[in-house]
């Protein structure tokens, strides 16, 4: 790429001047200035690499111009620039395909400069990648199917989205109920993306004590010793923030800076460190509601949203259940040295009809338990015990004997903790032999 062409579409002379001045300092950039949307559209034939588009233009709205640009060239990056009061409107345009928005202040030219630099380097990288043999569609599907198993329409739709996510570097937000394999999707996309040579670092935000989270993510400088955080360790790769939910304001601001400027400051550190990281978040929370309630910053919400991926629940892809059950059964038997066991047709049907509120994780647990308690190589419906009472309220609604309640509680915990007998025994403060005995006697 010889020259990186940038369109500045701005009717405010002051800002147009400021943006042009800053960008023109780089001899690799050629800046074109337009004061109306129509002028910009008429000159798209010049093949710009980036468009900086003011939201309020005299002839067409920024939204209209953006849509028209996207119709003519969906791949062309467009940055929305708006006065601060219009951020709420402008961020909505991210969903229309804008790559970013910049509020008008004294930092706008510098931010646009960095953005142009990153896009230029991405474009150059893409040119290089196109010269290398990439993964074919079939190979990509094969890669995905190693992590996310299924043939249902919901999974095929998911693969399509994963393909798009693999070929771009956009922030990824993976939404879905617990146990829907959000991490598996994140890993599959990472492994099929140009970032696969960098690290994949997963941070379960709920697994880390609040007071240690900032250091873990951003690193720290203690007594002249530098401890890099997840974002630095993953430089060139991916950080997957799992269980993303409410974070304190300071952390939200720091994550926003990484997403917006590619920079961070270590705890107790002074220097700003540049990082090149793709962020993926997994969550079962309604982040939009968090944003609306004010607990999640609006600008962070829209940055995180990036490319949203909705994970299908297992009930939405119940045709995949038999295939998944066989897969996990085989895997569990091999891992534990059990003879090969197969599910009978009726067993598969029983599984298929169950709603699996705990999704794939619950299915794994159910299948593992069946493998443990079955004495035969054939696993029938009688070997499969399903957890149909997940809440205490539901547990108590159905009258039972004390022994029955005990069995259901233990079964619930076994599902919750992936059939880890030692952990469940510890949690319930009972002997592990009690659980093994109950399993063998098919009491649970």
């Amino acid at each position, binding site marked *: 790429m010889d020259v990186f062409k940038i369109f500045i579409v701005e009717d405010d*002379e*002051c800002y147009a001047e*400021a943006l042009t001045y800053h960008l023109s300092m780089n001899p690799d950039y050629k800046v074109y200035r337009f004061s109306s949307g129509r002028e910009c559209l008429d000159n798209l034939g010049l093949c710009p690499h980036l468009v900086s588009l003011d939201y309020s233009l005299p002839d067409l709205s920024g939204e209209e111009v953006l849509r028209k640009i996207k119709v003519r060239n969906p791949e062309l990056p467009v940055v929305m620039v708006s006065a601060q009061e219009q951020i709420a409107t402008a961020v909505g345009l991210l969903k229309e395909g804008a790559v970013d928005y910049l509020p008008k202040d004294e930092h706008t030219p510098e931010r646009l400069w960095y953005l142009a630099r990153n896009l230029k380097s991405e474009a150059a990288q893409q040119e290089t990648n196109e010269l290398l043999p990439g993964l074919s569609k079939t190979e990509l599907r094969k890669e995905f199917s190693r992590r996310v198993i299924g043939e249902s329409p919901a999974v095929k739709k998911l693969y399509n989205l994963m393909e798009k996510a693999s070929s771009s570097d956009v922030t990824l937000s993976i939404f879905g109920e617990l146990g829907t394999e959000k991490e598996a999707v994140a890993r599959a996309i990472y492994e099929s993306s140009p970032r696969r040579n960098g690290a994949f670092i997963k941070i379960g935000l709920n697994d880390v004590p609040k007071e240690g989270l900032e250091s873990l993510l951003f690193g720290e400088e203690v007594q002249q010793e530098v401890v890099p955080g997840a974002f630095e360790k993953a430089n060139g790769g991916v950080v997957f923030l799992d269980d993303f939910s409410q974070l304190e304001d300071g952390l939200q601001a720091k994550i926003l800076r990484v997403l917006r400027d590619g920079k961070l400051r270590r705890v107790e550190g002074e220097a700003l460190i540049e990082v090149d990281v793709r962020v993926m978040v997994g969550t079962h929370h309604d982040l939009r509601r968090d944003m609306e309630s004010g607990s999640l910053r609006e600008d962070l919400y829209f940055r995180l949203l990036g490319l949203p991926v909705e994970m299908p629940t297992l009930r939405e892809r119940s045709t995949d259940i038999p295939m998944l059950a066989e897969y996990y059964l085989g895997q569990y038997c091999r891992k534990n040295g059990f003879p090969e066991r197969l599910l009978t047709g009726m067993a598969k049907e029983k599984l298929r009809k169950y709603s699996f509120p705990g999704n794939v994780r619950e299915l794994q647990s159910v299948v593992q338990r069946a493998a443990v308690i079955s004495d035969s190589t054939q696993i029938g419906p009688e070997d499969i015990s399903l957890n149909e009472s997940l809440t205490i309220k539901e547990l108590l609604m159905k009258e039972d004997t004390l022994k029955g309640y005990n069995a259901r509680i233990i079964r619930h915990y076994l599902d919750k903790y992936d059939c880890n007998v030692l952990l469940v025994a510890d949690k319930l403060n009972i002997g592990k032999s009690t659980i093994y005995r109950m399993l063998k006697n098919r009491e649970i």
Partner: protein
Amino acid sequence: MSHYDLTKLRAMAQGNEAFVQRMIGVFLEHTPEQVRQITEYFHNHNLPKVSALAHKIKPSIDLMGIEELKTVIREIELKAKENQEDDLPSLIDRLNTIINLVFKDISKELAA
């Protein structure tokens, strides 16, 4: 006391005084006309245009550090958008007064 403050503009310029002067020149060249248009649109009861122009010059007013107009220009934009015509005369008067003072200050400084 000066009616403007170039701290933000200088931060943007990163030490390039020629750029600061150029930006001041652009401001002087365009803003009087825009303020005149706001006044004219108001007299013609064209409030959407008043709001749009107020919105347009708002970032330049912020950039030039004209603190006294920071709220005024936003109120003009909002009131015009909400058709609250009665509130506008005093705000537009204030806009004209302060802008004139800013121009006097800048001219004085440039002449010095």
